[in-house]
């Protein structure tokens, strides 16, 4: 008996992210046509937002992450070992909306590590070098027991003025359910909001961290201090697996944010609130 063709089609993921205005970066590891391989490793991961965003690339073989064609829910992932990274070339002006008054909404379907208790930082996205006078964003998973951190996310928006950040949120412990499980991380950066507590919101699988920003400095006006880096940053290490990343310019409505979170949840088999 022949199989119904409709049953053989891939499961639809429900939403085309391009239908929500503002999409400015879309990296989708399940779309192998956007990835250039060097053997089994990824040398380039290209944007498919159609906005001309730079590709994330790595020209040094030993620093190239691996491609796993069925990393999560039967879909592809880019898997970073501790020393590996992809860098968005010449991108110090490409992602200013992340740290300036424009603001942004960001989504990442990823897992920070392969172990349940890595007792370490795992870098996600960084274009600021963490010095107090650097401009850009810094996002990392933090599980360092030495400073009593367990499955937290840290998100800094630095404005390039000595000692000043536009916003900082360090979530409480157990914001991330498990270091070695995929989850949908989302962030809403309303960098110019006059109310400090309304500037930066972090979500894990659609649930808010409940931690508010308290920084009151103005948003940055300059370019990022460094090219945006995905994975290992400054020798800090990352064992992350990343399935998909979306950046939208501006603050999405709550309903649009939830739509993208559910799109990612459905696509990767992640339960989203």
């Amino acid at each position, binding site marked *: 008996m022949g199989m119904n063709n409709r049953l053989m089609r891939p499961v639809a993921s429900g939403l085309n992210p391009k239908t929500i205005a503002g999409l400015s970066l879309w990296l989708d590891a399940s779309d192998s046509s956007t990835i*250039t391989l060097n053997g089994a490793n990824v040398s380039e991961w290209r944007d498919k937002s159609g906005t001309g965003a730079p590709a994330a690339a790595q020209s040094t073989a030993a620093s190239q992450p691996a491609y796993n064609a069925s990393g999560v829910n039967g879909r592809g992932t880019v898997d970073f070992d*501790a*020393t590996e990274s992809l860098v968005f070339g010449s991108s110090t002006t490409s992602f200013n909306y992340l740290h300036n008054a424009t603001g942004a909404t960001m989504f990442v379907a990823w897992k920070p590590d392969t172990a349940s208790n890595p007792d370490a930082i795992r870098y996600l996205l960084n274009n600021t070098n963490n010095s107090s006078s650097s401009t850009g964003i810094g996002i990392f998973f933090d599980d360092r027991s030495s400073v009593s951190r367990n499955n937290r996310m840290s998100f800094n928006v630095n404005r390039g003025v000595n000692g000043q950040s536009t916003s900082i949120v360090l979530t409480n412990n157990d914001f991330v359910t498990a270091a070695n499980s995929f989850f949908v991380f989302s962030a809403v950066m309303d960098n110019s909001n006059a109310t400090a507590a309304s500037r930066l919101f972090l979500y894990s699988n659609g649930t808010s961290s409940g931690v508010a920003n308290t920084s009151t400095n103005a948003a940055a006006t300059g370019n990022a201090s460094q090219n945006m880096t995905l994975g290992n940053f400054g020798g800090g290490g990352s064992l992350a697996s990343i399935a998909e990343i979306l950046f939208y310019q501006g603050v999405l409505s709550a309903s649009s944010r939830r739509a993208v979170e559910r799109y990612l949840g459905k696509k990767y088999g992640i339960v989203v609130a």
Partner: protein
Amino acid sequence: MTMRFFRSTDAVYESIRTQLDGAYGYPNADTKTVTSITPAADAPHDTQGRAYLAISGVYCEYNLPAELLPQFLASGAVEEIAEDAYRAAVQPPEP
């Protein structure tokens, strides 16, 4: 998934990189790959001018690195060091 850490003079470091690039055929435009390991000029250095390399243990198990590495370690031209020593020398940014 372990990282390994090495240090050497720039001259030794570059000779290894050149051997690896020759064997792998880098630069390779098709794979958008320029070189095997970070050039010495871009690698972190300590106050004595030694170049440092942090690298995936998986990469060290590839055929050519697995063949070359024991030779260089045995000769003393390359020194494998502990992670603490690496971090103390290169001081990555601390959040």
